[in-house]
Protein backbone atom coordinates (compact mmCIF):
# COMPACT_ATOMS: atom_id res chain seq x y z
CA UNK A 1 0.00 0.00 0.00
CA UNK A 2 1.09 3.55 -0.41
CA UNK A 3 1.76 5.03 2.98
CA UNK A 4 1.07 8.62 3.81
CA UNK A 5 2.78 11.28 1.83
CA UNK A 6 1.20 14.33 3.34
CA UNK A 7 -0.41 14.98 6.69
CA UNK A 8 -1.96 18.37 7.18
CA UNK A 9 -1.56 19.97 10.56
CA UNK A 10 -4.62 20.42 12.75
CA UNK A 11 -5.03 24.11 11.86
CA UNK A 12 -5.12 23.36 8.11
CA UNK A 13 -7.61 20.59 8.72
CA UNK A 14 -10.16 22.86 10.39
CA UNK A 15 -9.95 25.36 7.52
CA UNK A 16 -10.29 22.55 5.00
CA UNK A 17 -13.41 21.20 6.76
CA UNK A 18 -15.15 24.57 6.38
CA UNK A 19 -14.11 24.88 2.76
CA UNK A 20 -15.29 21.37 2.00
CA UNK A 21 -18.64 22.05 3.68
CA UNK A 22 -19.07 25.23 1.64
CA UNK A 23 -18.27 23.46 -1.62
CA UNK A 24 -20.79 20.69 -0.90
CA UNK A 25 -23.39 23.27 0.08
CA UNK A 26 -22.87 25.09 -3.23
CA UNK A 27 -23.09 21.77 -5.07
CA UNK A 28 -26.43 20.96 -3.37
CA UNK A 29 -27.83 24.44 -3.98
CA UNK A 30 -26.75 24.42 -7.61
CA UNK A 31 -28.67 21.16 -8.17
CA UNK A 32 -31.80 22.81 -6.77
CA UNK A 33 -31.32 25.97 -8.82
CA UNK A 34 -30.60 24.01 -11.99
CA UNK A 35 -34.01 22.37 -11.52
CA UNK A 36 -35.56 25.77 -12.27
CA UNK A 37 -33.70 25.91 -15.59
CA UNK A 38 -35.52 22.76 -16.72
CA UNK A 39 -38.99 23.22 -15.19
CA UNK A 40 -41.26 25.73 -13.45
CA UNK A 41 -41.72 25.52 -9.64
CA UNK A 42 -45.23 24.17 -10.19
CA UNK A 43 -43.95 21.40 -12.49
CA UNK A 44 -41.20 20.60 -10.01
CA UNK A 45 -43.78 20.32 -7.18
CA UNK A 46 -45.98 18.02 -9.26
CA UNK A 47 -42.93 15.97 -10.23
CA UNK A 48 -41.86 15.59 -6.61
CA UNK A 49 -45.30 14.23 -5.71
CA UNK A 50 -45.02 11.67 -8.52
CA UNK A 51 -41.55 10.69 -7.27
CA UNK A 52 -42.80 10.18 -3.69
CA UNK A 53 -45.69 7.89 -4.54
CA UNK A 54 -44.34 5.90 -7.49
CA UNK A 55 -42.43 2.62 -7.60
CA UNK A 56 -38.74 3.35 -7.85
CA UNK A 57 -36.92 0.05 -8.07
CA UNK A 58 -34.28 -0.45 -10.76
CA UNK A 59 -34.28 1.21 -13.21
CA UNK A 60 -36.56 4.17 -12.57
CA UNK A 61 -35.15 7.39 -14.00
CA UNK A 62 -36.82 10.25 -12.12
CA UNK A 63 -36.20 12.44 -15.18
CA UNK A 64 -38.46 10.17 -17.23
CA UNK A 65 -40.90 9.34 -14.42
CA UNK A 66 -41.44 12.97 -13.37
CA UNK A 67 -39.29 15.67 -15.01
CA UNK A 68 -35.61 16.65 -15.13
CA UNK A 69 -36.37 19.59 -12.84
CA UNK A 70 -37.99 17.34 -10.24
CA UNK A 71 -35.09 14.87 -10.43
CA UNK A 72 -32.52 17.64 -9.93
CA UNK A 73 -34.56 19.17 -7.11
CA UNK A 74 -34.87 15.78 -5.42
CA UNK A 75 -31.10 15.28 -5.70
CA UNK A 76 -30.57 18.77 -4.25
CA UNK A 77 -32.85 18.09 -1.28
CA UNK A 78 -31.27 14.71 -0.52
CA UNK A 79 -27.80 16.32 -0.78
CA UNK A 80 -28.79 19.13 1.57
CA UNK A 81 -30.27 16.72 4.09
CA UNK A 82 -27.16 14.54 3.93
CA UNK A 83 -24.98 17.58 4.49
CA UNK A 84 -27.13 18.64 7.43
CA UNK A 85 -26.76 15.18 9.02
CA UNK A 86 -23.00 15.23 8.47
CA UNK A 87 -22.73 18.65 10.09
CA UNK A 88 -25.16 17.86 12.91
CA UNK A 89 -23.50 14.56 13.78
CA UNK A 90 -20.05 16.12 13.83
CA UNK A 91 -18.67 13.71 11.23
CA UNK A 92 -15.53 14.73 9.37
CA UNK A 93 -15.70 15.37 5.65
CA UNK A 94 -13.22 12.57 5.07
CA UNK A 95 -12.91 10.60 1.84
CA UNK A 96 -15.39 8.07 3.22
CA UNK A 97 -17.97 10.76 3.96
CA UNK A 98 -17.48 12.44 0.58
CA UNK A 99 -18.03 9.07 -1.12
CA UNK A 100 -21.25 8.52 0.84
CA UNK A 101 -22.45 12.08 0.20
CA UNK A 102 -22.06 11.85 -3.58
CA UNK A 103 -23.62 8.39 -3.57
CA UNK A 104 -26.67 9.90 -1.84
CA UNK A 105 -26.82 12.73 -4.37
CA UNK A 106 -26.36 10.38 -7.33
CA UNK A 107 -29.01 7.87 -6.37
CA UNK A 108 -31.52 10.64 -5.74
CA UNK A 109 -31.78 10.77 -9.54
CA UNK A 110 -33.17 7.23 -9.64
CA UNK A 111 -34.63 5.68 -6.54
CA UNK A 112 -33.97 7.65 -3.38
CA UNK A 113 -36.26 10.34 -2.04
CA UNK A 114 -37.22 11.76 1.32
CA UNK A 115 -40.24 9.48 1.71
CA UNK A 116 -38.40 6.20 1.24
CA UNK A 117 -35.01 7.14 2.74
CA UNK A 118 -35.92 8.80 6.03
CA UNK A 119 -37.16 5.72 7.96
CA UNK A 120 -33.96 3.84 7.11
CA UNK A 121 -31.74 6.72 8.20
CA UNK A 122 -33.83 7.05 11.37
CA UNK A 123 -33.29 3.32 12.03
CA UNK A 124 -29.52 3.83 11.90
CA UNK A 125 -29.89 6.76 14.30
CA UNK A 126 -31.88 4.53 16.67
CA UNK A 127 -29.12 1.94 16.46
CA UNK A 128 -26.56 4.52 17.58
CA UNK A 129 -28.78 5.43 20.56
CA UNK A 130 -29.44 1.80 21.52
CA UNK A 131 -25.78 0.81 21.34
CA UNK A 132 -24.61 4.02 22.97
CA UNK A 133 -22.31 5.27 20.24
CA UNK A 134 -22.31 8.71 18.64
CA UNK A 135 -24.35 9.09 15.45
CA UNK A 136 -21.25 10.17 13.53
CA UNK A 137 -19.83 6.67 13.93
CA UNK A 138 -22.79 5.19 12.02
CA UNK A 139 -23.39 8.00 9.54
CA UNK A 140 -21.99 5.95 6.64
CA UNK A 141 -24.44 3.14 7.44
CA UNK A 142 -27.26 5.68 7.73
CA UNK A 143 -26.49 6.81 4.17
CA UNK A 144 -25.60 3.54 2.47
CA UNK A 145 -28.56 1.66 3.94
CA UNK A 146 -30.88 3.87 1.87
CA UNK A 147 -29.81 1.81 -1.16
CA UNK A 148 -32.71 -0.47 -0.22
CA UNK A 149 -35.22 2.42 -0.14
CA UNK A 150 -37.32 1.21 -3.14
CA UNK A 151 -38.46 -1.62 -0.89
CA UNK A 152 -40.11 0.98 1.35
CA UNK A 153 -42.09 2.46 -1.56
CA UNK A 154 -43.05 -1.02 -2.76
CA UNK A 155 -44.43 -2.06 0.64
CA UNK A 156 -46.21 1.28 1.11
CA UNK A 157 -47.97 1.51 -2.25
CA UNK A 158 -47.68 -1.66 -4.34
CA UNK A 159 -48.53 -4.65 -2.16
CA UNK A 160 -52.25 -3.97 -1.90
CA UNK A 161 -52.42 -2.53 1.63
CA UNK A 162 -54.52 0.52 2.45
CA UNK A 163 -52.30 3.66 2.29
CA UNK A 164 -52.09 4.08 6.08
CA UNK A 165 -51.36 0.39 6.70
CA UNK A 166 -48.93 0.31 3.79
CA UNK A 167 -46.96 3.31 5.00
CA UNK A 168 -46.95 2.00 8.59
CA UNK A 169 -45.63 -1.43 7.53
CA UNK A 170 -43.13 0.16 5.15
CA UNK A 171 -41.76 2.48 7.81
CA UNK A 172 -41.48 -0.36 10.34
CA UNK A 173 -39.48 -2.36 7.79
CA UNK A 174 -37.35 0.71 6.97
CA UNK A 175 -36.53 1.40 10.60
CA UNK A 176 -35.71 -2.27 11.15
CA UNK A 177 -33.34 -2.29 8.17
CA UNK A 178 -31.67 0.88 9.44
CA UNK A 179 -31.24 -0.81 12.82
CA UNK A 180 -29.56 -3.97 11.51
CA UNK A 181 -27.55 -2.40 8.68
CA UNK A 182 -24.59 -1.18 10.80
CA UNK A 183 -24.23 -4.68 12.27
CA UNK A 184 -24.27 -6.41 8.91
CA UNK A 185 -22.30 -4.01 6.73
CA UNK A 186 -19.10 -4.07 8.73
CA UNK A 187 -19.13 -7.85 8.99
CA UNK A 188 -19.67 -8.35 5.25
CA UNK A 189 -16.40 -6.52 4.63
CA UNK A 190 -14.58 -9.68 5.64
CA UNK A 191 -16.23 -11.51 2.72
CA UNK A 192 -14.53 -9.45 0.03
CA UNK A 193 -11.60 -8.15 2.12
CA UNK A 194 -12.18 -4.54 1.09
CA UNK A 195 -11.79 -5.16 -2.66
CA UNK A 196 -15.42 -4.17 -3.31
CA UNK A 197 -15.73 -0.44 -2.66
CA UNK A 198 -19.55 -0.48 -2.57
CA UNK A 199 -19.76 -2.63 0.54
CA UNK A 200 -23.10 -0.97 1.32
CA UNK A 201 -24.36 -2.37 -1.98
CA UNK A 202 -23.39 -5.87 -1.01
CA UNK A 203 -25.17 -5.49 2.33
CA UNK A 204 -28.29 -4.02 0.71
CA UNK A 205 -28.22 -6.87 -1.82
CA UNK A 206 -28.28 -9.48 0.93
CA UNK A 207 -31.11 -7.65 2.73
CA UNK A 208 -32.99 -7.28 -0.58
CA UNK A 209 -32.51 -10.97 -1.35
CA UNK A 210 -33.94 -12.00 2.04
CA UNK A 211 -36.81 -9.51 1.71
CA UNK A 212 -37.82 -10.70 -1.75
CA UNK A 213 -37.58 -14.33 -0.69
CA UNK A 214 -39.92 -13.56 2.19
CA UNK A 215 -42.39 -11.57 0.06
CA UNK A 216 -42.43 -14.14 -2.76
CA UNK A 217 -43.03 -16.91 -0.24
CA UNK A 218 -46.33 -15.22 0.68
CA UNK A 219 -47.39 -14.59 -2.89
CA UNK A 220 -46.24 -10.99 -3.24
CA UNK A 221 -44.08 -10.27 -6.24
CA UNK A 222 -42.15 -7.22 -7.35
CA UNK A 223 -41.19 -6.69 -10.96
CA UNK A 224 -38.18 -4.80 -12.25
CA UNK A 225 -38.97 -1.70 -14.31
CA UNK A 226 -37.29 0.17 -17.12
CA UNK A 227 -38.26 3.85 -17.19
CA UNK A 228 -35.43 5.77 -18.83
CA UNK A 229 -35.01 9.15 -20.51
CA UNK A 230 -32.70 9.78 -23.46
CA UNK A 231 -33.50 13.33 -24.56
CA UNK A 232 -31.45 15.51 -22.20
CA UNK A 233 -27.93 14.62 -23.36
CA UNK A 234 -26.66 18.10 -24.22
CA UNK A 235 -28.17 19.90 -21.22
CA UNK A 236 -26.90 17.33 -18.77
CA UNK A 237 -23.49 17.31 -20.41
CA UNK A 238 -23.25 21.06 -19.80
CA UNK A 239 -24.27 20.56 -16.16
CA UNK A 240 -21.58 17.91 -15.67
CA UNK A 241 -18.88 19.96 -17.40
CA UNK A 242 -19.78 22.93 -15.18
CA UNK A 243 -19.58 20.88 -11.95
CA UNK A 244 -16.35 19.06 -12.78
CA UNK A 245 -14.65 22.21 -14.10
CA UNK A 246 -15.49 23.93 -10.80
CA UNK A 247 -14.04 21.00 -8.83
CA UNK A 248 -10.91 21.07 -10.99
CA UNK A 249 -10.39 24.81 -10.57
CA UNK A 250 -10.98 24.75 -6.80
CA UNK A 251 -8.67 21.73 -6.48
CA UNK A 252 -5.93 23.35 -8.55
CA UNK A 253 -6.28 26.56 -6.54
CA UNK A 254 -5.81 24.60 -3.30
CA UNK A 255 -2.84 22.77 -4.83
CA UNK A 256 -1.16 26.01 -5.92
CA UNK A 257 -2.05 25.29 -9.55
CA UNK A 258 -0.04 22.07 -9.74
CA UNK A 259 -0.69 18.33 -10.12
CA UNK A 260 2.10 17.58 -7.63
CA UNK A 261 1.88 14.01 -6.26
CA UNK A 262 -0.98 13.06 -8.60
CA UNK A 263 1.05 10.26 -10.16
CA UNK A 264 1.71 8.93 -6.66
CA UNK A 265 -2.01 9.04 -5.88
CA UNK A 266 -2.74 6.92 -8.96
CA UNK A 267 -0.38 4.24 -7.65
CA UNK A 268 -2.55 3.59 -4.58
CA UNK A 269 -4.40 0.27 -4.81
CA UNK A 270 -7.63 1.91 -3.69
CA UNK A 271 -8.50 -1.01 -1.43
CA UNK A 272 -10.70 -0.08 1.52
CA UNK A 273 -9.72 2.08 3.37
CA UNK A 274 -7.82 4.55 1.13
CA UNK A 275 -8.79 8.07 2.10
CA UNK A 276 -7.21 10.45 -0.42
CA UNK A 277 -8.20 13.53 1.59
CA UNK A 278 -6.05 12.31 4.45
CA UNK A 279 -3.20 10.98 2.31
CA UNK A 280 -2.90 13.78 -0.26
CA UNK A 281 -5.03 16.68 0.98
CA UNK A 282 -8.36 17.99 -0.24
CA UNK A 283 -7.00 19.89 -3.25
CA UNK A 284 -5.49 16.89 -5.01
CA UNK A 285 -8.51 14.79 -4.05
CA UNK A 286 -10.79 17.31 -5.72
CA UNK A 287 -8.62 17.26 -8.84
CA UNK A 288 -8.92 13.46 -8.92
CA UNK A 289 -12.70 13.71 -8.46
CA UNK A 290 -12.92 16.13 -11.41
CA UNK A 291 -10.68 13.99 -13.65
CA UNK A 292 -12.71 10.88 -12.83
CA UNK A 293 -15.91 12.80 -13.55
CA UNK A 294 -14.62 13.75 -17.00
CA UNK A 295 -13.39 10.20 -17.72
CA UNK A 296 -16.71 8.64 -16.68
CA UNK A 297 -18.68 11.10 -18.79
CA UNK A 298 -16.38 10.43 -21.73
CA UNK A 299 -16.92 6.68 -21.35
CA UNK A 300 -20.70 7.15 -21.55
CA UNK A 301 -20.53 9.35 -24.62
CA UNK A 302 -17.80 7.38 -26.46
CA UNK A 303 -19.71 4.11 -26.05
CA UNK A 304 -22.91 5.67 -27.38
CA UNK A 305 -24.76 5.86 -24.06
CA UNK A 306 -27.22 8.56 -23.05
CA UNK A 307 -26.91 10.95 -20.13
CA UNK A 308 -29.95 10.55 -17.88
CA UNK A 309 -30.81 10.21 -14.18
CA UNK A 310 -29.29 6.79 -13.51
CA UNK A 311 -26.18 7.61 -15.53
CA UNK A 312 -25.75 10.85 -13.58
CA UNK A 313 -26.07 8.71 -10.45
CA UNK A 314 -23.31 6.44 -11.70
CA UNK A 315 -21.03 9.34 -12.54
CA UNK A 316 -21.59 11.13 -9.22
CA UNK A 317 -20.91 7.91 -7.32
CA UNK A 318 -17.61 7.50 -9.15
CA UNK A 319 -16.77 11.13 -8.38
CA UNK A 320 -17.50 10.56 -4.68
CA UNK A 321 -15.42 7.40 -4.51
CA UNK A 322 -12.59 9.24 -6.21
CA UNK A 323 -12.00 10.69 -2.76
CA UNK A 324 -11.90 7.16 -1.40
CA UNK A 325 -10.00 4.79 -3.65
CA UNK A 326 -10.80 5.34 -7.32
CA UNK A 327 -8.42 6.91 -9.83
CA UNK A 328 -7.79 6.53 -13.57
CA UNK A 329 -5.22 3.76 -13.22
CA UNK A 330 -7.51 1.39 -11.28
CA UNK A 331 -10.83 2.22 -12.97
CA UNK A 332 -9.99 2.30 -16.70
CA UNK A 333 -9.11 -1.45 -16.80
CA UNK A 334 -12.56 -2.17 -15.32
CA UNK A 335 -14.22 0.00 -17.99
CA UNK A 336 -12.29 -1.90 -20.69
CA UNK A 337 -13.22 -5.29 -19.22
CA UNK A 338 -16.92 -4.51 -18.97
CA UNK A 339 -16.99 -2.98 -22.47
CA UNK A 340 -15.21 -5.99 -23.97
CA UNK A 341 -17.85 -8.23 -22.43
CA UNK A 342 -20.61 -5.99 -23.76
CA UNK A 343 -19.17 -6.20 -27.28
CA UNK A 344 -19.19 -9.99 -27.14
CA UNK A 345 -22.36 -10.73 -25.18
CA UNK A 346 -26.05 -10.57 -26.10
CA UNK A 347 -26.78 -7.22 -24.42
CA UNK A 348 -26.86 -3.83 -26.12
CA UNK A 349 -23.66 -2.02 -25.06
CA UNK A 350 -25.39 1.36 -25.49
CA UNK A 351 -28.29 0.63 -23.16
CA UNK A 352 -28.49 2.43 -19.84
CA UNK A 353 -28.30 -0.89 -17.96
CA UNK A 354 -25.08 -1.83 -19.77
CA UNK A 355 -23.52 1.59 -19.25
CA UNK A 356 -24.44 1.46 -15.56
CA UNK A 357 -22.70 -1.92 -15.35
CA UNK A 358 -19.48 -0.28 -16.52
CA UNK A 359 -19.77 2.83 -14.35
CA UNK A 360 -20.70 1.03 -11.15
CA UNK A 361 -18.40 -1.88 -12.08
CA UNK A 362 -15.61 0.38 -10.88
CA UNK A 363 -16.61 -0.75 -7.41
CA UNK A 364 -13.95 -3.35 -8.21
CA UNK A 365 -11.23 -0.79 -8.90
CA UNK A 366 -9.10 -2.02 -5.95
CA UNK A 367 -8.66 -5.39 -7.71
CA UNK A 368 -7.11 -3.59 -10.69
CA UNK A 369 -5.13 -1.36 -8.34
CA UNK A 370 -3.72 -4.28 -6.38
CA UNK A 371 -3.20 -6.94 -9.07
CA UNK A 372 -2.67 -4.86 -12.20
CA UNK A 373 -4.54 -3.86 -15.36
CA UNK A 374 -4.92 -7.37 -16.83
CA UNK A 375 -6.54 -8.55 -13.60
CA UNK A 376 -8.72 -5.44 -13.77
CA UNK A 377 -9.87 -6.21 -17.31
CA UNK A 378 -10.68 -9.83 -16.37
CA UNK A 379 -12.56 -8.56 -13.32
CA UNK A 380 -14.58 -6.08 -15.37
CA UNK A 381 -15.42 -8.84 -17.87
CA UNK A 382 -16.61 -11.19 -15.11
CA UNK A 383 -18.58 -8.40 -13.45
CA UNK A 384 -20.55 -7.76 -16.67
CA UNK A 385 -21.76 -11.35 -16.54
CA UNK A 386 -22.58 -11.39 -12.86
CA UNK A 387 -24.36 -8.05 -12.57
CA UNK A 388 -26.90 -8.85 -15.28
CA UNK A 389 -27.76 -12.13 -13.59
CA UNK A 390 -28.06 -11.16 -9.97
CA UNK A 391 -30.78 -8.50 -9.92
CA UNK A 392 -33.53 -11.18 -9.98
CA UNK A 393 -32.63 -12.00 -6.38
CA UNK A 394 -33.79 -8.59 -5.15
CA UNK A 395 -35.99 -7.49 -8.08
CA UNK A 396 -34.24 -4.14 -8.23
CA UNK A 397 -35.17 -3.01 -4.71
CA UNK A 398 -31.44 -2.79 -4.03
CA UNK A 399 -30.31 0.25 -5.95
CA UNK A 400 -26.66 -0.76 -5.53
CA UNK A 401 -26.95 -3.89 -7.68
CA UNK A 402 -23.35 -3.54 -8.85
CA UNK A 403 -22.08 -3.40 -5.29
CA UNK A 404 -23.97 -6.66 -4.62
CA UNK A 405 -22.42 -8.29 -7.67
CA UNK A 406 -19.03 -6.74 -6.91
CA UNK A 407 -18.92 -8.41 -3.50
CA UNK A 408 -19.14 -11.88 -5.06
CA UNK A 409 -16.67 -11.05 -7.84
CA UNK A 410 -14.09 -9.60 -5.41
CA UNK A 411 -14.47 -12.47 -2.95
CA UNK A 412 -13.94 -14.98 -5.78
CA UNK A 413 -11.23 -13.33 -7.86
CA UNK A 414 -9.02 -11.61 -5.28
CA UNK A 415 -7.81 -14.89 -3.66
CA UNK A 416 -7.16 -16.38 -7.12
CA UNK A 417 -5.13 -13.34 -8.20
CA UNK A 418 -3.31 -13.51 -4.86
CA UNK A 419 -2.16 -17.07 -5.56
CA UNK A 420 -1.20 -16.25 -9.17
CA UNK A 421 0.84 -13.30 -7.95
CA UNK A 422 2.61 -15.46 -5.35
CA UNK A 423 3.48 -18.11 -7.98
CA UNK A 424 4.85 -15.44 -10.36
CA UNK A 425 6.87 -13.80 -7.58
CA UNK A 426 8.27 -17.16 -6.47
CA UNK A 427 9.38 -17.95 -10.02
CA UNK A 428 11.03 -14.53 -10.27
CA UNK A 429 12.88 -15.11 -7.00
CA UNK A 430 14.13 -18.52 -8.21
CA UNK A 431 15.32 -16.99 -11.49
CA UNK A 432 17.18 -14.25 -9.60
CA UNK A 433 18.86 -16.83 -7.33
CA UNK A 434 19.91 -18.94 -10.33
CA UNK A 435 21.33 -15.96 -12.22
Amino acid at each position, binding site marked *: *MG*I*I*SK*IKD*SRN*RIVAEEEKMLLLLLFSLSLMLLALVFNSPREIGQGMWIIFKSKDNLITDYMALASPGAALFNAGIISMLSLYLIKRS*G*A*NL*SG*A*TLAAFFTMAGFAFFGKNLFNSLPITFGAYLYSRL*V*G*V*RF*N*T*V*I*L*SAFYATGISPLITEIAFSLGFTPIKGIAYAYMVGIFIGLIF*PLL*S*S*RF*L*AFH*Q*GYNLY*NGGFTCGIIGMFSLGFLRMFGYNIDSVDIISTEYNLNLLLVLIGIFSTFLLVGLYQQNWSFREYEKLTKE*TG*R*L*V*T*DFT*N*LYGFGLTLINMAIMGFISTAYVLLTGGSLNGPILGGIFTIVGFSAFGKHPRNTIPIFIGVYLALLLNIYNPRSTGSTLGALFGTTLAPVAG*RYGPIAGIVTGFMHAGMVTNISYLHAGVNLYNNGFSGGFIAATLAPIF*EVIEEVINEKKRKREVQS
Partner: protein
Amino acid sequence: MKRREREKYKARKIIDELTGYLLRNNIKKLSIYLEIEEDRINISLWGQLTCTIPDLEDVIKLMNAKRVPEMEEYYEHLLGSGINANDMNLLGAMVDEASYELKEDRLEVRVTRFI
Protein backbone atom coordinates in the same frame (compact mmCIF):
# COMPACT_ATOMS: atom_id res chain seq x y z
CA MET B 1 -22.54 -4.97 22.80
CA LYS B 2 -21.91 -2.37 25.52
CA ARG B 3 -19.59 0.50 24.82
CA ARG B 4 -16.88 -0.80 27.11
CA GLU B 5 -16.98 -4.20 25.42
CA ARG B 6 -16.81 -2.52 22.02
CA GLU B 7 -13.69 -0.68 23.10
CA LYS B 8 -12.10 -3.98 24.13
CA TYR B 9 -12.94 -5.37 20.70
CA LYS B 10 -11.38 -2.33 19.02
CA ALA B 11 -8.26 -2.78 21.15
CA ARG B 12 -7.99 -6.37 19.90
CA LYS B 13 -8.34 -5.24 16.29
CA ILE B 14 -5.69 -2.52 16.74
CA ILE B 15 -3.31 -5.10 18.21
CA ASP B 16 -4.09 -7.48 15.31
CA GLU B 17 -3.19 -4.83 12.76
CA LEU B 18 -0.02 -3.69 14.51
CA THR B 19 1.10 -7.28 15.06
CA GLY B 20 0.57 -8.05 11.38
CA TYR B 21 2.49 -4.94 10.38
CA LEU B 22 5.47 -5.77 12.58
CA LEU B 23 5.53 -9.44 11.57
CA ARG B 24 5.41 -8.49 7.89
CA ASN B 25 8.48 -6.41 8.64
CA ASN B 26 10.24 -9.45 10.06
CA ILE B 27 10.33 -8.44 13.73
CA LYS B 28 11.37 -11.22 16.15
CA LYS B 29 10.37 -12.01 19.75
CA LEU B 30 7.30 -9.80 19.74
CA SER B 31 5.75 -8.82 23.08
CA ILE B 32 2.46 -7.03 23.61
CA TYR B 33 1.23 -4.86 26.48
CA LEU B 34 -2.41 -3.79 26.75
CA GLU B 35 -3.91 -1.49 29.37
CA ILE B 36 -7.56 -0.43 29.35
CA GLU B 37 -8.16 2.57 31.59
CA GLU B 38 -11.31 4.62 32.20
CA ASP B 39 -10.54 7.18 29.54
CA ARG B 40 -7.97 5.52 27.26
CA ILE B 41 -6.49 2.36 25.88
CA ASN B 42 -2.71 2.06 25.90
CA ILE B 43 -1.03 -0.51 23.69
CA SER B 44 2.68 -1.21 23.38
CA LEU B 45 4.38 -3.74 21.14
CA TRP B 46 8.09 -4.37 21.26
CA GLY B 47 10.50 -6.80 19.67
CA GLN B 48 13.78 -7.33 17.91
CA LEU B 49 14.31 -5.74 14.53
CA THR B 50 16.01 -7.85 11.88
CA CYS B 51 15.99 -5.12 9.22
CA THR B 52 14.93 -1.48 8.99
CA ILE B 53 11.27 -0.65 8.45
CA PRO B 54 11.28 1.95 5.66
CA ASP B 55 7.78 3.36 6.23
CA LEU B 56 7.78 3.34 10.04
CA GLU B 57 7.99 7.14 10.34
CA ASP B 58 5.07 7.53 7.91
CA VAL B 59 2.97 4.98 9.76
CA ILE B 60 3.57 6.75 13.07
CA LYS B 61 2.61 10.08 11.46
CA LEU B 62 -0.51 8.50 10.05
CA MET B 63 -1.50 7.22 13.49
CA ASN B 64 -1.05 10.72 14.91
CA ALA B 65 -3.48 12.17 12.35
CA LYS B 66 -6.96 13.15 13.44
CA ARG B 67 -9.41 10.36 14.45
CA VAL B 68 -12.13 9.65 11.87
CA PRO B 69 -15.07 8.32 13.92
CA GLU B 70 -17.35 7.75 10.93
CA MET B 71 -15.00 5.05 9.62
CA GLU B 72 -14.86 3.13 12.88
CA GLU B 73 -18.18 1.32 13.01
CA TYR B 74 -18.31 0.77 9.28
CA TYR B 75 -14.80 -0.46 8.52
CA GLU B 76 -13.40 -1.73 11.85
CA HIS B 77 -13.77 -5.39 10.92
CA LEU B 78 -11.21 -4.92 8.14
CA LEU B 79 -8.55 -4.09 10.67
CA GLY B 80 -6.05 -6.92 10.96
CA SER B 81 -7.70 -8.95 8.21
CA GLY B 82 -5.21 -8.32 5.39
CA ILE B 83 -2.77 -11.14 4.73
CA ASN B 84 -0.36 -9.27 2.50
CA ALA B 85 -1.82 -5.80 2.81
CA ASN B 86 -1.73 -3.14 5.50
CA ASP B 87 -4.72 -1.25 6.81
CA MET B 88 -2.69 1.55 8.29
CA ASN B 89 -5.07 4.18 6.88
CA LEU B 90 -7.84 2.65 8.93
CA LEU B 91 -5.60 2.24 11.97
CA GLY B 92 -4.74 5.93 11.72
CA ALA B 93 -8.46 6.74 11.75
CA MET B 94 -8.97 4.78 15.00
CA VAL B 95 -6.09 5.85 17.26
CA ASP B 96 -5.19 9.23 18.72
CA GLU B 97 -1.49 9.11 19.51
CA ALA B 98 1.46 6.99 18.50
CA SER B 99 5.19 7.01 19.03
CA TYR B 100 8.14 4.65 18.72
CA GLU B 101 11.48 4.13 20.36
CA LEU B 102 14.44 2.42 18.77
CA LYS B 103 17.38 1.36 20.96
CA GLU B 104 19.92 -0.67 18.98
CA ASP B 105 17.75 -3.44 17.49
CA ARG B 106 14.89 -3.15 20.03
CA LEU B 107 11.83 -1.43 18.61
CA GLU B 108 8.88 -0.36 20.76
CA VAL B 109 5.69 1.08 19.25
CA ARG B 110 3.24 2.81 21.59
CA VAL B 111 -0.32 3.65 20.69
CA THR B 112 -3.10 5.43 22.61
CA ARG B 113 -6.79 5.53 21.86
CA PHE B 114 -8.92 7.86 23.97
CA ILE B 115 -12.31 6.44 24.94
